[in-house]
């Protein structure tokens, strides 16, 4: 901001459900404050402005799953000083990365009567497979509070602190009784990145891994415990293979159960 120009924020969407950019709109109390200090455009869901770059910060939602999006994300990167990917789709390929474990042509034929008109890559991949990414914000969806802190940090020129600790740490802090140990409820909390505030165990259900793998995981040990609880191998496979199916520790563990 040395030249007195306002900082410029852009929000982009690739293959996704819109939920992570909605998390930004869900900052109802902070949105107008942010908008008074930062120029926000493009952000197709919110504004008809289609300003050109460069941008100080680009938030990218969604996975790369078509040749056009692979090209688009390169242009976004070239125009952005800092690029932050938001959500399970952008950081891990999302639920649509289930195609990576299947035959995409068969998927196309299953859904569309004229599959030849539908363009799709065989894989749904995270943005970081295509261009350098500065920070990744995980979650399906991202946590609103985390998103605001990262935007504030980046725009202030600070390095955001993003913990890679597991859901278990947050769950203990929340004072929950362990659903896995005390109730035998299958839970991915031990191998899943925190950030949600241990939402699922707080609702008396097991974590289903929507924030993706924690920084350090021991998935085989957890799988042994899940099987000891009576989960079948296919059920364990499915447990790891959902919203972050293509994230390496989860992908490896699901493949081990094929």
């Amino acid at each position, binding site marked *: 901001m040395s030249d007195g120009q306002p900082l410029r924020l852009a929000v982009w969407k690739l293959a996704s459900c819109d*939920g992570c950019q909605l998390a930004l709109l869900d900052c109802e109390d902070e949105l107008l404050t942010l908008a008074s200090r930062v120029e926000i455009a493009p952000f*197709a869901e919110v504004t008809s402005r289609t300003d050109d770059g460069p941008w100080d910060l680009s938030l990218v939602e969604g996975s790369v799953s078509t040749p056009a999006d692979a090209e688009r994300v390169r242009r976004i990167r070239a125009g952005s000083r800092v690029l932050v990917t938001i959500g399970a789709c952008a950081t891990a390929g999302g*639920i649509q990365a289930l*195609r990576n474990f299947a035959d995409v042509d068969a998927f196309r034929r299953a859904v569309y009567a004229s599959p030849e008109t539908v363009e799709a890559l065989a894989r749904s991949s995270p943005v970081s497979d295509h261009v350098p990414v500065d920070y990744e914000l995980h979650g399906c969806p991202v946590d609103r509070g985390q998103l605001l802190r990262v935007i504030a940090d980046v725009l202030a020129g600070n390095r955001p602190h993003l913990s890679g600790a597991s859901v278990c740490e947050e769950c203990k802090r929340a004072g929950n009784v362990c659903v896995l140990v005390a109730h035998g409820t299958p839970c991915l909390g031990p191998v899943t990145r925190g950030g949600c505030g241990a939402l699922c165990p707080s*609702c008396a259900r097991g974590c289903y891994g929507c924030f993706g793998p924690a920084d350090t995981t021991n998935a085989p040990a957890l799988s042994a415990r899940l099987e000891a609880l009576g989960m079948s191998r296919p059920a364990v496979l499915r447990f790891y293979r959902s919203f972050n199916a293509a994230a390496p520790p989860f992908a490896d563990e699901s493949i081990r159960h094929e």
Partner: protein
Amino acid sequence: MSEPGSGDSRRITVDLLTRVEGEGALTLRTRGGELESCELRIFEPPRFFEAFLVGRHWTEAPDITARICGICPVAYQMSACHAMEAMAGVRIDGPLRDLRRLLYCGEWIESHGLHVGMLQLPDFLGYPDAIAMARDHPELVRTTLRLKQTGNRVMRTLGGREIHPVNVRLGGFYRLPARADLQALVPELEWALDAARGLAERIAELEFPDFHQDYELVALVHPDEYPFNEGRLVSTAGIDVPVGRYDEVLVEHQSPHSTALHTATARGTPVLMGPLARYALNHERLTPLARETAARIGLGAVVDNPFRAICVRLVEIVFACEEALRILRGTVSADQAAVPVPLRAGTGCGATEAPRGLCYHRYRVDADGLITEAKIVAPTSVNQARIEADLRALLAGELSRPDDELRFLCERAIRNYDPCISCATHFLDLRVERS
């Protein structure tokens, strides 16, 4: 630019429709001042939900299908739950049914609040977005944001979080919300009820284009209530069947310009779902203040001007606040968080009213509880053909206008339907080809 009768041709495009959910484009082709074609192109990348649901466990459908749409995850969760529960022969009644309606009230208030304030109102007042609008109309923007926030609070209290709630399961919920947390919603909903009534009167005084269409409107109809989760599939042109017969009366086909599948009636008529349809078919069963608001702002029995959908959305916000308060003031304590839903292999259908229209799911499940077939029809994919028909009618007398004006007119008209392109699989790019 083209002159009528000159034989000139134009191709006008909107490369990326804005203030809609998801990514789509519009291409208009004109020749000699006549509209040749009008294609709403949805180029959101295909995500293949119906394919990868095959082989998943039936209990996973609510959480997986929620990811079709971050704006209306509750609609997907509810339609999936009802489809599976219908297959199992389980009915959810009493307090659990009320709590599901309460969760849905939250999603309607949030989604309609977002649409009214941030997506549609800037068109009426001449701003590119709500942020610019907030400089001149700060109270208006703050009110719609607070309405949206109220909806989010309801969803968070019941679902754990507002986007992709975690607390919904077949048979009910994982954990019942604490009574104190539910009661804490009451003052904010009381504020929202008053605010929505005031906003409806203010917005009804805006200028609306004089544009009327004869729609076949389709919505759920329930004998006792304005519909969320239950009812018969009814149209204003005589369809009246149980939800299980959806596939007989509404048929999908693929159009080459879109990754969304199109829908028409078995007779080939495009239909419209969403607030206009629900209102036309159910307004007698609105709650008292919602009915009073509709009358006060001059809505008749049928609203046939899509630009007035913003008014109907506000009436529905009033309804959702009133309904939520009714539930919260009644008995909301249930004995258990969920009723058992035993596996019974077979086929099940469910349809519920997403904010933008009916969301239909059909699943076939085998004896191991694995899904062998899934069909999901989002309201935007159903509405797409009808949106194109409206654009053709709207443009008929307007083609001599410059490209930029046509672009704005089309984008504005498209926003009337609150299209959720992520749902319909999927971005608007307007091109007008004048050849």
